[in-house]
């Protein structure tokens, strides 16, 4: 019954054509702009120019650094959180999962906005630090990489936790007890059993978090401002303020390449561990 290819294409093509027309084609044209020279030929000059600016270098490295940092930290917290949640009774687990998903439903504008109040010099964090005697004068956290880091982490941690929860739940129930019986300590259990068995969830979560950091605009815009630019805010500035569409195209290309590269890299890491284990057998 499901043999007819013409039928299948008729069903699938409208969506594909739509996505291609309003999305892929315009984006490809935009990307190609970055490779055009004035006389219409192809050139990498715009890329050379882009990376020759110390500002752009700094922004590029910062974006990479924050993206990687948020991904790693969210993985660490994500495992702790996912373990804890999976260990709960089904009802509590449902409620806790709901609580993790909840922030995803709230406007990122509102969520980021809250950090201004929390991280400010007179905000809760500084008040607490002073009450606890951790710092004498209020610390300046807003408009720093730290602020962006915190904002991004809060924004994307739920994606990691959700991915890890489903990975942990799909793990064979006997794997951990079996490893314990064989004499592995908790660290070894994590490293040798849980990590390999949940790596797919980790890869999915990691990709979501990292690409999320690359695509987030609001958080760096509000918490970093023009003092701490990231690629996405820099791109906005290039377009909105400088009208420099070539630079915007270069940034767009870098962002897309980074997010695809992250995806591939994480997949590669996952399969590499897999083949290692297979070879060891």
């Amino acid at each position, binding site marked *: 019954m499901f043999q007819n290819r013409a039928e299948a294409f008729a069903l699938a093509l409208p969506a594909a054509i739509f996505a291609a027309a309003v999305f892929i084609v315009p984006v490809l044209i935009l990307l190609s702009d970055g490779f055009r020279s004035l006389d219409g030929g192809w050139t990498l000059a715009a890329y050379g120019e882009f990376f020759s600016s110390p500002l752009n*270098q700094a*922004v590029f490295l910062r974006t990479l650094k924050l993206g990687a940092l948020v991904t790693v930290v969210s993985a660490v917290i994500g495992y702790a959180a996912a373990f804890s949640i999976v260990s709960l009774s089904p009802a509590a687990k449902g409620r806790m999962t709901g609580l993790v998903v909840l922030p995803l439903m709230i406007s990122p504008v509102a969520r980021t906005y809250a950090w201004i109040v929390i991280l400010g010099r007179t905000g809760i964090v500084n008040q607490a630090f002073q009450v606890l005697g951790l710092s004498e004068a209020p610390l300046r956290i807003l408009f720093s990489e730290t602020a962006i880091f915190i904002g991004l982490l809060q924004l994307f941690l739920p994606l990691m936790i959700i991915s890890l929860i489903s990975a942990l739940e799909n793990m064979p129930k006997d794997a951990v007890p079996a490893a314990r019986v064989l004499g592995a300590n908790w660290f070894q259990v994590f490293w040798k059993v849980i990590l390999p068995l949940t790596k797919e969830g980790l890869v999915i979560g990691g990709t979501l978090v990292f690409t999320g950091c690359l695509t987030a605009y609001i958080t760096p815009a509000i918490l970093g*401002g*023009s003092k701490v630019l990231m690629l996405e805010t820099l791109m906005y500035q290039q377009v909105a*303020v400088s009208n420099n569409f070539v630079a915007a195209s270069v940034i767009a290309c870098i962002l897309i390449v980074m997010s695809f590269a992250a995806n591939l890299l994480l997949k590669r890491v996952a399969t590499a561990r897999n083949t290692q284990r297979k070879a060891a057998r």
Partner: protein
Amino acid sequence: MKTLITASAAVLLATTGLAQAQEKTLTISVYALAQDEYKQIVYDPFQAICGCKLVVETGNSVERVAKMEANKANPVIDMAVVSMADALSASRKDLTDTIDTAKLKSFNALYDIAKDPNQDGKSVGYTFYANSIVYRSDKMKIESWADLFKPEYVGHIAFPNITTNGAAPTLYMLGQALGKDTPDLAAPIATIGENKDEIVTFYEKSSQLVQLMKQEEIWAAPAGRFAWAPFTKLGLPMAWATPKEGQAGGMNVMVVTKGSKNRDLALQFMDFWLSTEIQTKLAEKLVDSPANSEVKVSDEIAGNLTFGKATAESLKFIPSAVALDNRAGWIKTWNDKVGQ
């Protein structure tokens, strides 16, 4: 499912229906400041007079000019208010038209500097303002632009980002204070660069400053006088500095988009806005300092504005051409010294 589609169709109809209800529409592009007051004093009365619909786009000056350029072939905006320098930039890009000042009844009442700020006949000033420093008088004392960079203050200031209208005048005055006022602004930008880690932020819109001030994130920031009023409502001891180097001038001007289909309506609107009556009302609400010399206000109001002929003449304006020709260089220097 079905109801959702119906509902969205209804919303779609409602939005398009709204647009079709009145055929004459004037689309203007303005700063986002004080829109409630503008609506009450300028937009609503004008809509009543012209029987047309006013559509308002807001944003900062540079961004809106960038957008006008993007839509050059098919202009959306009929009339815009932008900074002096941006007006020249727009005129150089052939985005604006010569203004028929004969249709502006109050034109002759304008201060001279507002009549044709860029000497190209394509803009008319509607407000000018002093650029100085707003600060917490209980925390500091500002007598010179250079005081901002005192070690005990610098961790508590916000500075306008290079992309804003406020940056150049501020840097220019800072250059004067440093005794190095070359048009490339190299010395003041270098000073900012040395202090970039200390400075709280580089703001994009002066309206952001109020929140930062309220939260004690900052104690001082260079700002335009138009932004002053909200600070007075914070309940904090706030002061407007009168640095010994003087205050830089800034002016916002009106332009008409080239190819606008509603040019007469745009001129009618500009005439209305520039009239003594409207300029007086805007001044009384501390929205804009009047460019119309016939406006009379109380001393208290005047004290909160950039008011009067003497003030107008004392302000140090950076010529638009200088600003435009150097802008790329400033941004490059800034990015190299401050941005990274």
